[in-house]
């Protein structure tokens, strides 16, 4: 079953200068997909448009068959969209527990405590000090809290924007271990990432976005040797040629 479907999506900050210039792809239920591309390719803009944070100028986005194009971010969360921004993805002035309590407000009152407890089981580092101010957490712990917050409502799809950005190699390993566990639990994952090696090791399928257009859509294994990826990043190979 298709969980997320983009059809000819155009998006950006200025209608006359779209950054995403007509992108189409589908993500199946339980699939783990990474989106790669050089800086400025429009990866983050595209997933922010999907998450309701950047205006769309054309095309559609469907979640589990329902048209969600142009909905505001808070409405998308209620539809089953989980999004973790690259930076500033937790409320640092609130405690760990308060961050989760805000997300839990979307659930029926009877389920809230259980879901928060489930997240603390999944991320024991957070569960051991729920009243700590989130601003005191390390980079890796912040990413875990951001993921826990997004997973709390059991989203149909979890989209992450460069979860390893700015982290030390050790913390990157921790973050990808966490993502591996989330994916293994059956959550549909879409990941934008600059850390190509780690992303390809995690996912089954990879898209490459170049200049706002899809340049490659295929198994992650195809990109492991780096040659094809290099050609795509440098624009020496078009989408048609790589398909």
């Amino acid at each position: 079953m298709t969980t997320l479907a983009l059809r000819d999506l155009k998006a950006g900050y200025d209608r006359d200068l779209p950054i995403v210039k007509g992108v189409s792809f589908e993500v199946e239920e339980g699939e783990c997909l990474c989106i790669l591309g050089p800086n400025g390719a429009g990866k983050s803009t595209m997933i922010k448009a999907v998450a309701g944070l950047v205006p769309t100028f054309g095309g559609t986005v469907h979640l589990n068959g329902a048209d969600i194009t142009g909905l505001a971010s808070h409405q998308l969360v209620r539809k089953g969209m989980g999004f973790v921004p690259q930076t500033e993805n937790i409320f640092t002035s609130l405690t760990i527990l308060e961050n989760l309590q805000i997300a839990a407000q979307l659930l029926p009152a009877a389920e809230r405590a259980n879901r928060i407890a489930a997240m603390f089981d999944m991320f024991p580092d957070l569960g051991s000090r729920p009243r700590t101010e989130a601003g005191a957490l390390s980079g890796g712990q912040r990413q875990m809290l951001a993921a826990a917050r997004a997973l709390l409502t059991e989203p149909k799809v979890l989209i992450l924007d460069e979860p390893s950005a700015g982290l030390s190699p050790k913390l990157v390993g921790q973050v990808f271990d966490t993502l591996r566990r989330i994916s293994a639990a059956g959550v549909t994952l879409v990941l934008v990432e600059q850390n190509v090696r780690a992303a390809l090791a995690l996912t089954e399928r990879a898209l490459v976005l170049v200049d706002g257009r899809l340049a490659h859509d295929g198994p992650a294994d195809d990109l492991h040797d780096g040659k094809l990826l290099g050609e795509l990043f440098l624009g020496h190979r078009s989408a048609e040629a790589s398909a």
Partner: protein
Amino acid sequence: MNPQALIDGLVAGSTIGLGAIGLTLTYSILRFANFTHGDFLAWGAYLTLTVAGVLGGLAAGLGAPVYPFSFGWGLPLAMLGGVCLTIVLALGLDRVLFGRLRARGADTIIIVMASFGASMALRSLLEFIFTAKPVYFTKALQIANPLGFGMRATPDQLLVIGLTLLLVVALHLIVTFSATGRAMRAVAENPSLAGVYGIDVARVVRVTWIIGAGMACIAGVMAGLLVQIRPYMGFDLLLPLFAAAILGGIGSIPGAMIGGLVIGLAEAFAVQIVGAEWRAAVAFVILVLVLMLRPQGIFGRKGA
């Protein structure tokens, strides 16, 4: 030095603090200095006076003073009506003016200037409708009772201090422990991320106006009850309100209250030490000192 300044300062500070709460919430959540906030105080007082007049017409007994206070049951009932009408005014202004500017992505300075213009319009409208002549909730005389240490206070003054304390504690508990309060703090920190968390930011904005306008109305009624009601009463309080909000730390409800009390006390003592003509300068001096020495205020976070 006359210790009566302590009571005078606490009474004035209660009004300033309660008014500053709305200002600090608007500042932290909507991210602009709202110059119309002072006019919400004045409009709140006049709207309450109007409702009190209507209630008095319907049931004359409501206006009879209830011992030991100088006013009857009509005033608290009218204040409830005044609070509702002031909230309608604030929400209407947001819908017609501020909300549209936000939707267009207007710069903060544009919204501040719009609030400045709206403030003048609201004030002129008050003067047009009610004239500039001061009016009163009550003309009953009250004797100030001795409190000890050479201090005296009227029952109305003690009620104002007590009601302020009650409202501030209640609001602080709501913002700290309720889901709405957590959402307000989240929007204050990062409105875009709040949407990603599933918070309806537009709803939080409405709640902010409701709390701010409600508190402004009550502060206006307090000022009107203890002194008099004038179209410029809110405008005259604007500088102390800003000074209290900034001194307390933007976004902090206890901070705004403590800031208000500090300003009120400083004004009262300044009147005794350097003369009444310097009263208005006190808030300005405190504002400048805070901005230079501790811009985040007493309870504010650095860089917030």
